[in-house]
Each structure stands twice: as structure tokens, then as C-alpha cells.
């Protein structure tokens, strides 16, 4: 991609994000309701774990680690999540993609704009909720003070979000071949919610699963970004950063491959 093309894409993306934010502002109440439900699951998990620990349970992580993890998890899950697959599949099936394919702009730019702008809006509603959640547990929350760790966290978040978006494009693009990709999308969501660490920290899962959990991709969307803040020593994160980068690269290449191959089969249903 030339610098000129990147500038043009950036300009279109800015316009689309602005427009998406305008639309979100019109339909704002669902956002608040949705974020309240996003915080509820980790809050329940946090209460259950703390209750269990108070009654003698000994998880392989400290109480501070668990508390900080579960306070942050809703934020990280939201920031790295993607919801494009269903809409992309519908566009392919119903021919709505036509309107994008005849424009001199990447079709995925609209989905990226929707993703970014919704996350900005969700962040504005989720941050206060997370802050409220953190208040009663603030004594057990330990966050690093060094800005470098926060930059690393930001990098891991962006990489995790990119990977999840690419997975979404891959699943959505299967609609070029299949009539219904909903089942596949559901399986992916199930795998992601279980293996990403969004429900339970991966570090409390059985030790025997360790090698598998370290190579599977979903953990690099939620558990690993949180780990960049919670790991006692930054030097232990090198392998994780490399594996995450490899998954992102693989996801980008696979998404492009599936998309380009799929477009050749596109029938542009309807007018």
C-alpha cells in the first residue's frame, strides 16, 4: 500500500468514524444497557472467586492478580472484540455488498469504522462502570506505574483487536460458499469466550492445558493483553508478543486469501 493510498484510506476512515458516532448518538440507550450486562459477568465471577478464596480455596494466582484481572477483563474483552462476521455474511448473501464494491474504497473500511467508533462510544460508557466496580476492591488492585507497560498493553490490545477482526472477516467471508455461516460464527464465539480468558483467567485453568493454551490464538485477545499489565517481569512477555504477532500475521493473510477467493464467487444477489 502506497503512502497516498494509506492517506486516502485514513481520510475515508475518519469520515466513516464520524458518521458512525453520529448514528450511535442517535441510538445511545442500547449502549448503556449493553455495557451494564458486559460488566455483570466478571463481577459475578469476581464475587464467586473471592468467596471461594475466603472459604479456603487456593487458586494458582494471588487474590490481587485475580481481582485486577476480573476488573479489567470486561474492558479488554470489549476493546478486542469484533462483531463483523454476521453483518458481512448477510451483505454477501443479500447482495448488499454491491454498494461497497463499486466504490473506490476497501469494503472492510466501513466495518473497521463501525468497530472503532462503537468501541469509542462503549469505552465512554464502560469506563465509569469499571471504575465503580473497582471502588470496593481498590485495595486488591495492583496496576503498574511505568508508562512503558501501558504502551505494551496498548500494543497488545491493538494486535488482539486486529486478530479478532480478521477472524471475523474469515468467518463472514465463508458466506461466499455457504448459505448460512451462523453456526460457524457461534462455534467461534464459544471457543473465543472459553479460550480467551474472558470468562475465567487462563492462569486458573488446569496446568496440563498450559501448552495448548499458550499456542491457541484466542488467549492473545484477552488474557495476554491483561498479562502485559500483571506479569511481574516484562522480560517474560517476549514469547507471548512473538506468538501474538505470528497469529495476527497469519489471520491477516488468511482473511485476505479467503476474501479474494470468495469475491470471485460473488453473485451480487438482487440488483
Amino acid at each position, binding site marked *: 500500500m502506497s503512502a497516498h493510498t494509506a492517506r486516502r484510506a485514513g481520510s*475515508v476512515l475518519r*469520515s466513516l468514524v464520524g458518521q458512525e458516532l*453520529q*448514528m450511535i448518538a442517535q441510538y445511545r440507550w442500547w449502549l448503556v444497557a449493553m455495557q451494564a450486562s458486559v460488566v455483570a459477568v466478571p463481577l459475578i465471577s469476581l464475587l464467586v472467586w473471592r468467596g471461594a478464596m475466603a472459604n479456603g480455596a487456593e487458586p494458582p494466582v494471588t487474590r490481587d492478580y485475580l481481582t485486577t484481572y476480573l476488573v479489567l477483563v470486561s474492558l479488554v474483552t470489549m476493546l478486542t472484540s469484533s462483531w463483523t462476521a454476521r453483518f458481512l455474511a448477510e451483505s454477501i448473501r443479500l447482495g448488499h455488498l454491491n454498494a461497497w*464494491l*463499486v*466504490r473506490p474504497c476497501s469494503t472492510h473500511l466501513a466495518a473497521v469504522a463501525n468497530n472503532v467508533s462503537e468501541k469509542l462510544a462503549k469505552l465512554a460508557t464502560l469506563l465509569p462502570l469499571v471504575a465503580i466496580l473497582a471502588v470496593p476492591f481498590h485495595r486488591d488492585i495492583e496496576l503498574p506505574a511505568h508508562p512503558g507497560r501501558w504502551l505494551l498493553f496498548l500494543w497488545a490490545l491493538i494486535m488482539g483487536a486486529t486478530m479478532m477482526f480478521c477472524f471475523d472477516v474469515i468467518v463472514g467471508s465463508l458466506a461466499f460458499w455457504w448459505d448460512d455461516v451462523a453456526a460457524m460464527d457461534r462455534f467461534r464465539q464459544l471457543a473465543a469466550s472459553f479460550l480467551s480468558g474472558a470468562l475465567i483467567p487462563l492462569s486458573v485453568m488446569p496446568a496440563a492445558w498450559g501448552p495448548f493454551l499458550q499456542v491457541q490464538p484466542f488467549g492473545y485477545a484477552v488474557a495476554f493483553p491483561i498479562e502485559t499489565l500483571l506479569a511481574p517481569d516484562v522480560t517474560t512477555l517476549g514469547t507471548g508478543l512473538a506468538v501474538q504477532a505470528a497469529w495476527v500475521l497469519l489471520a491477516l493473510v488468511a482473511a485476505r486469501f479467503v476474501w479474494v477467493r470468495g469475491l470471485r464467487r*460473488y453473485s*451480487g444477489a438482487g*440488483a
Partner: protein
Amino acid sequence: MRSPTFGSEPVISAQGLSKRYDFYRQPQGFLNALRSLVSRELTSVQAVVGLDLTVERGEIIGLLGPNGAGKTTIVKMMSGLLVPSAGELRVCGYRPAARSYPFLSQISVIFGQKAMLWWDVSTRESLKIHRSMYEIPRTEFATTVGELGELLGIAEILDTPVRNLSLGQRMRCELALALLHRPTLLFADEPTIGLDVQAKLVVRSLFQEINRAFGTTIVLTSHDMADVEALTERVVIVTGGRATFDGDLADLRTRADLPKEAVFTYRDGRIERMPIGDEPIGTLVQTAARSGELVDVKVVEPGLDEVMSAVFSESTVRP
């Protein structure tokens, strides 16, 4: 950005263009649905067969045919939406299926039944996004929006959310969006569908205006014969995926070979029509006069609808 060779070559050049759709048959009944989980029947439909077509810069052509004839598939291939199964196709000097920026920035597509405008925001917001996409300078953008606003009578509704516009208003705004970047080639698929008479006239005169002012080539697909008659000199009839006629409207009328009609109006309000064959018109008038007191006699050409109907019903018609 223009293709280096585009200046000298036709806007559209198709040789042996074909498109085949492959799809799985939908099984009937529960048992067949279960069976289809392990074995499905692949079916092919040849939508376009060996199309040869050349369109020069500045032409307005009507791509016509009955439903399912293949005309929309042709437009989709020409606008880069579909990859042809066989044949050669160059549009504005580019291979459309490659969907390059220089190609896509020279074309525009109006789908009468599908919106290009963003539904939840105003037309002005959609225009701004197109300004970024097509890299239109801000001053040129302001001028063009002003001109289009006036020409299409939409200046007052540019800031109204699209979902609150009437169909006629929305179509005018769709046109503004399609014309903002002054395309070299405009594909208009049923552009007047659902519009009232006045709005149709506006759209037609606008097409004529942009064709005259900017030399924009227009490929029109429409079932509205008034559109065709008002806008196109050249028509290409597509039936069964093949181009079965390519010529002007006069040729088409000749080819259809439908007789003119004499229309008689009687004092009591009755109107009767008689085809004019080899009989002299005087004889027809004398015959008609026996049925009552005549107050008017007119000789009319067969309508384009009847002409098209006659041509569509033929399997192959070569000019």
C-alpha cells in the same frame, strides 16, 4: 487518474463475454434436506453467453430485456461486481474485475432498488464520505454540491436524515451522490423506479444534461419505455443471455414489424383502434364511419412497449 490507452479506446469493449452461475439445488422435503447434508446437487445457469459489445465515449445506450435475460449480470460484470466466466472485458481502459482505484473512481452505479446513501445520516454526510473516497478538493466539492442541489431540487433536504426522505427525494439524493465525482461512465439500473411523473422528468433531463455537459457515457437498464425513448438512441436487447439486437430505435421498430394503428373517436365517446395493413386509410375511415358519427381520426405508431414485447418474444433477432 486515467488509463494510458483509454483516450483512444471505447469506454466499454466486450468480446465473447460470458457468465455462468454455479449453485446448489435446494432439496424439497425433509428427507431430501437430510440427504443434502452429505451430498448436494450442483447446478449451473448460463446467464450471459458470448456477448460482443462496444460502447463509445459519450453514448447513452439502453440495455433492455425481459426479467432474467441477463442484463443486470452484464452491468455487474462491467462495474466490477462479478468476475466473467469467459471472454474479454475492458471498461474505461481497465479490467473491471480487478477493481482498481483508477477504474472505480471513473464509474458510478445507481441501483434503483438499492440505496447507496447511508440510511441514518443526512445526504450531506454521505456526500462528505464520497469526497474523501474520490479525493475531491473542498472547493470543488462545495461548488458541485451547490450545483447538484439546485439542479436536483434537493438543496433544502441535504441535511435531512435519509430515512426521513420520500422515495422521490431519496432517488434525487442518490443521483447527487452518484454524480458528485463526475464519472466517465454511469450505470443506471432502473433509475426512475417508484418515482412520480415529475421526478422522472427531472431524472431524464439530468441524464441528458450530464451527457451533454461532461460527455458522460450512460448505460441504462430500465423497464420504463418512456425512459428509454427519452434518453437512448441506441438499444441493445438481451434475451436468454445473448445480445439479440443492437441498433437504434427506428431499426428496432422496423425489426418488430408492427403495423401502425388508426384510432377512431366517436361522438358517443367510444374509441376504437384498427391496425393499418395494406388497406388504404380512406377505406378504413369509411368502414369506421358505418359504426357511428366520427369526431376524430389519428394514426399512431405502435408504442415502444409493444415493440419491445414483440422483440423479446423472438428467440434471436439480428439487425
